[in-house]
């Protein structure tokens, strides 16, 4: 847009009402009844100059400019220069020479912004991230208020009278509080009462109330006044001599920014917010204030035609496009909403306006793929870096490339010069008032800075901090993110601070420690990397860190549990340099609890807490833990201070694009860490369905930040990036035994009855039906599980528990069904049956199974007549004969036999030393004769028997084999335990109830045990993070609703470091809900329910679908 008139009237009036070409305020040179003033009227307005020392700006001399620059400039150029420099010659020259004027050919109209755009997070980071003042700024001399411009506005009279207001009369602007709104003459219409808190009154020079400003203008002017940003005074431009109530009055308002407006939106609010709004997904009062402030500032700058003199214009087009889009969305519902929300009390959580943001649509898998595509465009020839010699593990090529990339990230931008923060714009203070009179200036302060995304103002130059010296390491699980980070710890240390430099501070530190510390008192920990990970991974991090370092080169310290009593400050800052921990490992829980402690102390921290240090590097492992930006954990992590920030996550986006925002915010990547900015360019386009555009932006954000490789990436040569051994998954379909089937049918019919009876209203009976389905699934595992109160509590179906208790009477047949499982558990030493029997068993054990010719037999089992065969063969044969209606007979001697008289031969050789069998008699001396007989059928559960069969087979094949057994029911693990014990299979147990130290010990033993061992794991406790590559076999005892969860568990074994083939066996009972669950799994592979991302209601609906499938 060109402004030819500027040449004649430099800098003087262009801000006011003459800008014919701006559409929003275009009713120029109009009749005096128009809301805006024409320029000739304006010229006559007199304004009292504020009481500030006058200042004489030099006139703009075009010839001088041309002379200095050394070339003749076209009038257009000159015009731009004048405009850009506010008529300041020196500045104009500079602007011309650095070329920045070219960017400014379009005066950036102040930007209308999305009211719901603002989060307290944004103001928080931006306000607090300011650097100390540039030298030379003398704030003390800054006046209390400073003129920034004038604009016209319409008002209406609230009373009638003659000569109430005369042309040119000075007007006071007052903010009417809701109480004051019950003045006479108030319009009783709905709009008025609805917005009674935006009423802005004005009084004449005699301080009599004359009228009010029009609502559209009053809305934002009210916020300016309420939030103490502006001081306004005005002059009357037009008023009829005889004023009647409701008459239009035209005023010109002169606006002054108050000194208090600058940089004052800060800590106090933030702290209160911290406590109150931590879980509030809705717009908080701070967010609303911010939003209103944002709108108000945008409007104000628009009205006074103040445009940024410098800012970030390279993306101006994009920026405006985005903001306009969002603004359009808002205008539909916005005006109403602004009124509504501003009316709401601070504690009202029902504000509708930010719902959209929180329930943003989830990303489909293909969208995610597209999103990662760019990030995954990994260059296989990118440079590598060799780790420092203190790092003793060898890295794979792609890991060295990661190291190079990370070192690059940490060092990269450190040489960049100071530049303005991308969210801020610079504005010049006007040097002339609306009449062309010179205004006083303050030395060294001829511009101010505005951040329209956070609605904040500042007098100081907002420096873009070199804050993102880190990134997102998003290699897929199993590629060795931990190792990569450890190599970085070794290879990139801070050399700038010799440890000795710290020592001089000792006395200082001491004295500080004793006084109550302020929130700003943060000590540097220049050689420490803080690692935050889920609790279950603490010990793994520690051991990997130790394994990776040559002895004595890296101090690893786990900050957890009782260790927390140590004073980190003493440890990191003052101890002599050899003892400073290089790596502190702590859990999210610890960070959170210390954060809450800090919040409860009103923002002051305990000096010895995690927050009392500024680390060299902070690393968040499994960083999707903070994907929800409103969660306490996320907020706690944001508060950590460090020079370098890294997040590790195999799934940086779990299901919405906002997941990534939280990471970006943690990383402090300006401008994206500003939620308002993020919403404008990413969330909003996503929501409006403009996926491609949002994707493009998101890719741009992620590309420099993220390094992601996947397991199935292929090198150009065709080799896999990580050659992992193959993994075979076998589904072992089992048949329930007759008595198990009876119990199952019992539950099935009951569930079906409930289901049919409530087919129309499943959601209501959800808990009951879901509990009954649970019973079915438990029966598939072990009928006795259904009687276990622990599980009932597990699944929060207390209702059903009660149900079962009260309905126990009609459960009598169930009780009898179950009692079949609680058969005797005797185990008898074979010696008791005499030498002959023993000899026979011994002899037969050496030969093959007479039925299947297997050699040796699988689970040698003897009949009552002491003939041996594989257990399964005998059972099959008995079954076969029964089906033919025959009395089962021994395959060998045709003696009649039955299930009760079958004994499994339990061998005690090859068993752990020190593991004494319960019923061994002292008479048996030779190891070979150590056998005992156990009646079959006491395990009761098909799955347990199947598991034992498999495990015993493995033990025969390779006594050193380690296996992992997963179940989602810890009480099922409880039942598996005794079965393993009986068969003398060594096992370990790991579940959620164990303390951290115990867990570590279990994993440690599992990895280091020389002999074969079985690890019993609960699916939930063991699903994440653990490294179980010592095992080769995985048994999944029961299916989960989504295979993704099972797959994650399997990946604990099948991951980097696994050297042999991995065999997975999934036990599924045929003809039961389990089989149908497999179908459900197939249907919704990788859908979000399983990952706990849906809210409770969505989950239920999803489950209802599942239930229908299960029972129909």
């Amino acid at each position, binding site marked *: 847009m060109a402004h030819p008139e500027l040449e004649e009237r430099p800098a003087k009036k262009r801000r006011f009402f003459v800008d014919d070409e701006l559409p929003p305020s275009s009713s120029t040179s109009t009749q005096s009844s128009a809301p805006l003033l024409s320029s000739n009227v304006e010229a006559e307005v007199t304004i009292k100059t504020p009481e500030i020392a006058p200042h004489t700006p030099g006139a703009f001399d075009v010839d001088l400019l041309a002379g200095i620059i050394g070339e003749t400039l076209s009038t257009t150029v000159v015009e731009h220069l004048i405009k850009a420099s506010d008529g300041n010659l020196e500045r104009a020259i500079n602007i011309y020479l650095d070329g920045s004027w070219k960017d400014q050919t379009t005066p950036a109209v102040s930007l209308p912004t999305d009211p719901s755009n603002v989060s307290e997070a944004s103001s928080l980071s931006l306000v607090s991230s300011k650097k100390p003042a540039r030298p030379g700024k003398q704030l003390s001399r800054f006046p209390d208020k400073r003129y920034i411009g004038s604009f016209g506005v319409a008002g209406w009279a609230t009373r009638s009278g003659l000569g109430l207001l005369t042309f040119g009369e000075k007007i006071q602007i007052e903010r009417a509080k809701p109480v004051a709104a019950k003045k006479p003459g108030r319009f009783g219409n709905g709009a008025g009462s609805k917005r009674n808190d935006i009423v802005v009154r004005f009084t004449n020079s005699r301080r009599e109330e004359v009228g009010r400003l029009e609502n559209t203008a009053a809305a934002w002017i009210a916020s300016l006044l309420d939030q103490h940003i502006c001081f306004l005074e005005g002059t009357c431009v037009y008023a009829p001599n005889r004023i009647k109530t409701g008459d239009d009055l035209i005023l010109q308002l002169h606006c002054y920014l108050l000194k208090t407006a600058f940089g004052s939106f800060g800590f106090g609010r933030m702290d209160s917010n911290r406590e109150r709004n931590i879980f509030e997904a809705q717009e908080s009062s701070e967010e609303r204030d911010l939003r209103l402030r944002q709108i108000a500032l945008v409007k104000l700058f628009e009205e006074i035609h103040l445009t940024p003199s410098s800012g970030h214009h390279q993306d101006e087009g994009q920026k405006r496009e985005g903001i306009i889009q969002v603004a359009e969305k808002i205008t539909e519902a916005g005006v109403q909403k602004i009124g509504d929300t501003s009316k709401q009390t601070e504690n009202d959580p029902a504000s509708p306006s930010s719902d959209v943001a929180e329930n943003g649509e989830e990303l489909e898998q293909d969208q995610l793929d597209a999103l990662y595509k760019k990030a995954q465009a990994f260059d296989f020839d990118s440079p590598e870096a060799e780790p420092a010699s203190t790092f003793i593990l060898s890295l794979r090529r792609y890991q060295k490339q990661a190291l190079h990339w990370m070192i690059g990230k940490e060092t990269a931008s450190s040489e960049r010069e100071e530049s303005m923060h991308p969210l801020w714009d610079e504005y010049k203070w006007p040097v002339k008032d609306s009449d062309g009179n010179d205004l006083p200036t303050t030395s060294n302060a001829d511009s101010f800075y505005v951040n329209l995304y956070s609605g904040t103002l500042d007098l100081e130059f907002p420096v873009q901090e070199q804050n993102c010296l880190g990134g997102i390491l998003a290699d897929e699980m199993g590629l060795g993110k931990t190792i990569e980070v450890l190599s970085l710890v070794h290879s990139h240390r801070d050399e700038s601070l010799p440890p000795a430099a710290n020592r001089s501070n000792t006395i200082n530190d001491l004295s500080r420690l004793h006084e109550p510390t302020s929130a700003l008192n943060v000590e540097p920990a220049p050689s420490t990397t803080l690692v935050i990970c889920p609790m279950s991974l603490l010990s793994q991090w520690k051991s990997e860190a130790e394994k990776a370092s040559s002895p004595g080169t890296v101090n690893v310290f786990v900050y957890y549990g009782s260790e927390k009593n140590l004073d980190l400050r003493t440890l990191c800052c003052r101890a002599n340099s050899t003892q400073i921990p290089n790596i502190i490992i702590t859990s999210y829980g610890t960070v959170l609890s210390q954060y809450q402690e800090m919040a409860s102390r009103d923002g002051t921290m305990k000096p010895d807490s995690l927050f009392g240090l500024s680390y060299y590097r902070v690393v968040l492992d499994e960083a999707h833990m903070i994907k929800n930006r409103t969660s306490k954990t996320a907020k706690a992590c944001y508060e950590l201070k460090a020079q370098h920030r890294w997040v590790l996550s195999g799934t940086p986006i779990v299901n919405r694009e906002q997941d990534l925002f939280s990471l970006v915010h943690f990383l402090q990547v300006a401008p994206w860490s500003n939620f308002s900015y993020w919403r404008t360019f990413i969330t909003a386009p996503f929501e409006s369905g403009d996926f491609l555009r949002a994707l493009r932006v998101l890719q741009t954000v992620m590309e420099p930040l993220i390094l992601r490789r996947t397991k199935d990436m292929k090198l150009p040569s065709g080799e896999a990036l990580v050659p992992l051994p193959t993994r075979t998954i076998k589904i072992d379909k089992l048949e329930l035994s007759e008595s198990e089937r009876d119990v199952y049918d019992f539950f099935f019919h009951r569930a079906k009855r409930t289901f049919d009876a409530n087919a129309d209203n499943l959601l209501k009976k959800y808990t009951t039906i879901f509990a009954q389905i649970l019973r079915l699934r438990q029966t598939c595992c072990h009928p006795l599980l259904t009687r276990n109160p622990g599980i009932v509590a597990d699944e929060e179906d207390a209702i059903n528990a009660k149900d079962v208790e009260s309905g126990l009477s009609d459960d009598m047949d169930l009780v009898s069904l179950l009692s079949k499982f609680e058969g005797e558990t005797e185990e008898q030493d074979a010696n008791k049956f005499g030498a002959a029997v023993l000899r026979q068993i011994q002899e037969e054990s050496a030969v093959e199974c*007479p*039925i299947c010719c*297997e050699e040796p037999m699988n689970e040698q089992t003897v009949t009552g007549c002491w003939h041996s065969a594989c257990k399964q063969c005998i059972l*099959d*044969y008995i079954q*076969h004969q029964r089906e033919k209606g025959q009395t089962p007979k021994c395959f*060998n001697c*045709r003696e009649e036999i039955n299930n009760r008289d079958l004994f499994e031969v339990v061998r005690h050789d090859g068993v752990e030393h020190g593991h004494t069998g319960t019923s061994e008699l002292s008479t048996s001396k030779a190891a070979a004769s150590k056998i005992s007989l156990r009646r079959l059928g006491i395990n009761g559960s098909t799955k347990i028997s199947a598991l034992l069969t498999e495990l015993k087979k493995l033990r025969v094949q390779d006594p050193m084999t380690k296996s992992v057994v997963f179940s989602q029911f810890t009480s099922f693990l409880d039942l598996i335990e005794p079965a393993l014990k009986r068969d003398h299979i060594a096992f370990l147990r790991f579940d959620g109830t164990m303390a951290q130290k115990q867990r570590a010990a279990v994993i440690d033993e599992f990895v280091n045990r020389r002999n074969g061992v079985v690890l019993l794991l609960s699916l939930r406790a063991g699903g994440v993070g653990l490294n179980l590559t010592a095992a080769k076999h995985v048994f999944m005892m029961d299916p989960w609703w989504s295979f993704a969860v099972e797959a994650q568990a399997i990946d604990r074994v099948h991951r980097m470091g696994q050297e042999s083939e991995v065999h997975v066996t999934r036990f599924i009972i045929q003809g039961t809900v389990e089989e149908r669950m497999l179908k459900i799994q197939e249907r919704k592979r990788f859908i979000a329910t399983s990952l706990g991302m849906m809210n409770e209601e969505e989950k239920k609906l999803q489950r209802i679908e599942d239930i229908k499938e299960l029972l129909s």
Partner: protein
Amino acid sequence: MALPKRIIKETERLMAEPVPGISAVPHDDNLRYFDVTIDGPTQSPYEGGTFKLELFLPDDYPMTPPKVRFLTKIYHPNIDRLGRICLDVLKGNWSPALQIRTILLSIQALLGAPNPDDPLANDVAQQWKEDQNTAIATAKEWTEKYAKA
């Protein structure tokens, strides 16, 4: 369907250590189908004859017995004109612990010891009971006629 380990093992053993006077060779295209020959036991009317049989292992073998039938015509009270054999271990007295080898031995034994009290071929059994000598002569004659060369 994969061949069960048991059948493989039995076949291998029949090949490796054949029973004197008995041979059993599986078909190439159906390893459950065997061509069997049994030499007539000495001191029996069938001496000198070589009898052909077919043997088939059903899917649920060894839970159910193999199916065996004489292909060579034979005059025997427990074997009918279609070659079907009346033998307890091939019926109710089958046990999975028995094998092809043992079954064929049992059949060989049956040739040596006909049991006209549990007949399958009623006319033959009748003859055997009423006039054993004539019956034996007929058996020899049949052997000569059908079971040689």
